[in-house]
């Protein structure tokens, strides 16, 4: 009886998603950073950063990333200084009480493309481009979702009413998205010579955004392996000790 009930419960839980509301499943991709020992591919992250800089950064902020963080994706301290110096940030007030512009330093955050949300909306037909730092964690199945969204632009099907200024996207909830298609073949020319197909660009920028969302992923995986090995040995020893101890008691 107990088995039947358990089996019924298990069957129910397994089939339950079938009842859930219809939703578009994103395309599945293999990611470098998945798996027990998953790591970021630094070359790929640098390509992704290039995509962010040349394509996304004109509208989307990366609030939680400072230039110094870029050392994590393989840039040297000096390279980071050069990258930072390409940006101007507001500092101050100086001794006269005036704010002033200066080149960014590694300790600065990547500057926001718009002074405020209102300006961001005004520049984007009323839509607010969201911050991307946490995007791959802020959506269900994030990396696959963002990848699919980048490549999901299509002609709206017949009879689909698209509001003015909106684009049709197969993977966006409701299919109407304010952001026009950004990623096409050869949209960027990669510094490392990689061929820039749309799929390649989307993959690279998603990998980069997963790094911005979860910068400690590599150390997490590495620590996890060590901790789990320790826990396993601890458990084996605890089991052997327990068995020897309880053997004193006889059969129970």
């Amino acid at each position, binding site marked *: *009886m107990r088995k039947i009930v358990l089996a019924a419960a298990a069957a*129910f839980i397994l089939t339950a998603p079938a009842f859930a509301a219809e939703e578009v499943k994103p395309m599945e991709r293999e990611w470098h950073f998945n798996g027990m020992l998953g790591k970021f591919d630094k070359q790929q992250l640098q390509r992704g950063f290039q995509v962010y800089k040349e394509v996304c950064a004109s509208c989307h902020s990366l609030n939680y990333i400072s230039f110094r*963080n870029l050392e994590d994706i393989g840039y040297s301290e000096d390279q980071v200084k050069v990258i930072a110096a390409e940006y101007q940030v507001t500092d101050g007030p100086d001794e006269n009480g005036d704010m002033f512009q200066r080149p960014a330093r590694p300790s600065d955050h990547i500057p926001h493309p718009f002074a405020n949300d209102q300006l961001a909306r005004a520049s984007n037909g009323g839509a607010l481009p969201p911050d991307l730092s946490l995007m791959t964690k802020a959506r269900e199945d994030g990396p696959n979702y963002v990848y699919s969204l980048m490549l999901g632009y299509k002609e709206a099907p017949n009879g689909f009413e698209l509001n003015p200024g909106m684009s049709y996207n197969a993977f966006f909830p409701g299919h109407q998205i304010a952001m026009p298609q950004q990623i096409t073949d050869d949209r960027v020319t990669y510094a490392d010579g990689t061929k820039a197909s749309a799929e390649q660009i989307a993959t690279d920028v998603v990998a980069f955004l997963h790094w911005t969302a979860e910068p400690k992923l590599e150390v*997490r995986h590495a620590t*996890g392996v060590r901790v*789990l090995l320790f826990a396993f040995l601890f458990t084996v020893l605890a089991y052997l000790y327990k068995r020897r101890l309880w053997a004193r008691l006889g059969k129970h």
Partner: protein
Amino acid sequence: MSTEKSRLMKAWEWHEQRLPIGSFLDHSLGSKYPAPKNLNYWWNFGSLALFMLVTMIITGVFLAMNYTAHVTLAFNSVERIMRDVNNGWLIRYMHSNGASFFFIVVYIHIFRGLYYGSYKPPREVLWWMGVVIYLLMMATAFMGYVLPWGQMSFWGATVITNLFSAIPGVGDAIVTLLWGGFSVDNPTLNRFFALHYLLPFVIVGVVFIHIWALHVPGSNNPLGIDAAPADKIPFFPYYVAKDVFGLGVFLMVYFAVVFWAPNMMGDPLNYVPANPMVTPPHIVPEWYYLPFYAILRAIPDKLLGVVAMFGSILILFVLPWLDRHPVRSASFRPIFRIFFWIFLANGLMLGWCGAQLAEGLPLILSRIGTFWYFFHFIVLLPLLSWIETPKPLPASISQPVLSPAE
């Protein structure tokens, strides 16, 4: 050397005579606490719950050192913990997943008690203290989930605090008091943080009473019969060794999630900062509340829904008087055992319903599930107390019954 040792022993005895802390521990969870020798692995979950409570308090204290309870800074301070605080990501993931694992452990602990009749005489007060701990855990976890100030934090807080407005007459006043204003805002976050820090220590206090109440009758056991002194073994070293082994197994599961799926049990929307102007399409509480959320939404009337939701937990207080069958363990109650598993499956089904939109099939199933939940307690258990013929009980733990039990 020997004089040195005896001096140390003398000092220890001197101290013991004035504050018998060693003797206290030995009687609490040591060699002076006799436990039935037939406890199975389902009895490991009490010590695991204590372990999780301590883990939550330690990780929580370190998080509090780096957290800022202000609506404009809370989300950023959590991200700072994740990125710039030394091992902050580990402490936070241990804490956020720790909440889920604390509930997993406690749910198993509760269902073990339900199966083996651990709530029956003479353990009613012990059971009560357990229910109080569970209620405090629910309140603590709810307020903790608000602290990162993400979208689900904010909207979860809005939905749950609004429940109190269903109370006739004083409802709105209570909600204003909870919020510290006229909407969920900075005062709400501040008081939730203060209470989230306070309540775990209240839980520690009730855990002491829980263990105290345990020591009066001693542990129940899988047979549910009173254990004769000859059938008991000292807690230390036997059950300490068994609990340490169980802890190792548990840690492997817990750490596997912390290191490889730390966001599995969280809602992605909580990585979006709270925005009072944007309501998420689907507000869901954390998984451990889902069955109760389903009960709340199953009932079309707001007040009755709230009453049913709180009633579904409060009814546990009177469980010892609803189930008055003299036999404790479900092993000897074939009919009760069937309904126990149905009750468990029903709870899982309600949990699934709680995660869906309240319409169509999930709504119908939550209504059936809610009905069954209360039917089980109010009708089935009293009825079975009258009519169920138990299997023959063994005379003692060492003397298993001769009839071919399963």
